[in-house]
């Protein structure tokens, strides 16, 4: 079953800047896909289309087989959870608990159900202890995990994350990765952090100048130096994707479709 399907999506901003010019993408149920691309490639614009914050100018987006449009947008927003890059944009309520409750309350769930969802979501990201703190008293890593919880509380079928590793120190970066790896639901991760993409997503696509220019196992894409260079993507200094295979990079927590990924590689 396809969780998210994007067909021939184009979008130009009111000032004429073309952000997307014919994007095609399909993400299967439970699959984790990285959308890689340099700054200005249209990654965030694509992300905003996925739950109808921007309406498609031509082409379409479908979530669980349902086209995103004015009639379905309310339902789609509860199926696709968007985690924004800056947690300060996402966390606007006075306490963590109130913020995590915001989505479920908008869905009109009864109070007991909301409380259960909040508790479960905070537990998943390991942030139960800070439930009654104000978001601005937390570290960036904690805020990012709380931002993920605000979306998990809505129990979305698809999780979309914008640069989940940006500005995090190495420990916070690993903690966010641990959180994401244990969720086991369809995930689209928009990033230019290539090693993070390799750790978290068996499959990757490269978005460049508003088009998907490559689609395949993350390890293979990252091994293609010419392809990366052509689209302004670079691996961190001294990083060799081939070596990560031997040290068991992320292997202690296998992705649901790890076997499919391995078959593709062979």
């Amino acid at each position: 079953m396809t969780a998210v399907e994007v067909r021939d999506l184009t979008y130009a901003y009111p000032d004429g800047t073309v952000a997307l010019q014919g994007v095609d993408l399909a993400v299967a149920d439970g699959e984790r896909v990285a959308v890689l691309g340099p700054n200005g490639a249209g990654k965030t614009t694509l992300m905003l289309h996925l739950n109808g914050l921007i309406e498609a100018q031509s082409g379409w987006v479908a979530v669980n087989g349902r086209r995103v449009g004015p009639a379905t947008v309310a339902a789609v927003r509860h199926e696709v959870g968007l985690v924004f890059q800056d947690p300060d944009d996402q966390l606007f309520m006075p306490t963590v608990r109130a913020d995590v409750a915001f989505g479920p309350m908008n869905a009109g769930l009864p109070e007991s159900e909301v409380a259960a969802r909040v508790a479960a979501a905070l537990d998943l990201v390991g942030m139960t202890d800070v439930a009654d703190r104000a978001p601005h008293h937390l570290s960036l890593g904690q805020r990012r995990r709380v931002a993920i919880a605000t979306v998990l509380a809505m129990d979305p079928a698809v999780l979309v994350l914008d640069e989940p590793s940006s500005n995090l120190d190495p420990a916070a970066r690993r903690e966010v990765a641990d959180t994401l790896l244990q969720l086991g639901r369809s995930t689209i991760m928009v990033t230019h952090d290539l090693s993070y993409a390799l750790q978290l997503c068996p499959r990757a696509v490269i978005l460049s100048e508003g088009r998907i220019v490559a689609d395949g196992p993350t390890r293979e894409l990252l091994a293609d130096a010419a392809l990366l260079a052509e689209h302004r993507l670079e691996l961190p200094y001294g990083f060799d994707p081939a070596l990560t295979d031997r040290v068991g990079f992320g292997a202690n927590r296998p992705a649901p479709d790890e076997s499919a990924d391995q078959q593709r590689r062979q």
Partner: protein
Amino acid sequence: MPPAGDVSGASWPRRLPPQVKIVAAVATILVIVLTPPRPPWVFLGYALILAAVVQSSGVGWRTVFSRMRVEVPFVAFAVLLPFIATGPEVTLGPLELSEPGLWAAWNILIKATLGIVVSILLAATTEAPDLVVGLQRLHVPDILVQILAAMVRYVSVVTGEWQRMSRARAARGFHGHGPRSWPVLARSLGTLFIRSYERGERVHLAMLSRGYTGRLPAAGTAAATSADWSVALVLPLTVLAVAALSWWVAR
């Protein structure tokens, strides 16, 4: 942002639900403001009552006095009044002062002072997010509560941004003294405004993506009990009793 006041101890006003404290504070200030300036001893009565509350609230006189500095502009205005007002004059040493001006100055000074003490008491025993919850409980229009809640949440984000900009200016040798620095400060403020505006748009997008439809879901806090109300309303009722007494005596 640090909490709105001294929230270390769990004194009795700290434990009261915020909506109860808001009503008590507003009612007390109303009574104080509506009291005629004469006879002056009424205000001494008010001051004694408030002193007792400050003493028992655990807020600390230091906090109260240091925060009373916000009153300085009012004081400056009040001090001017006896010199600029007209009417019968009284001689005080070398000065010829207007009598209605003196009463007007007294009226402004004493009411501002007492009102500010009440506000300080409310602010020092209630955290800002709780104030928002209290207003929501009091059925203040939703849009106002949302604006206030957003302000409480983002004031530290915006001031943090301003501090980073100030540091970055200072690091490049900028001194913020004198009119020559005004254009730079004005441009910085403009930039801060644009950034905050754009952040507002991003926050709105993030809210929409979680199903926001224009209404903030009501916060599930406990309602105030009648015991809470009776504790909190002691203050405005005592103040009102003193006012009634003065009216009865003056009759």
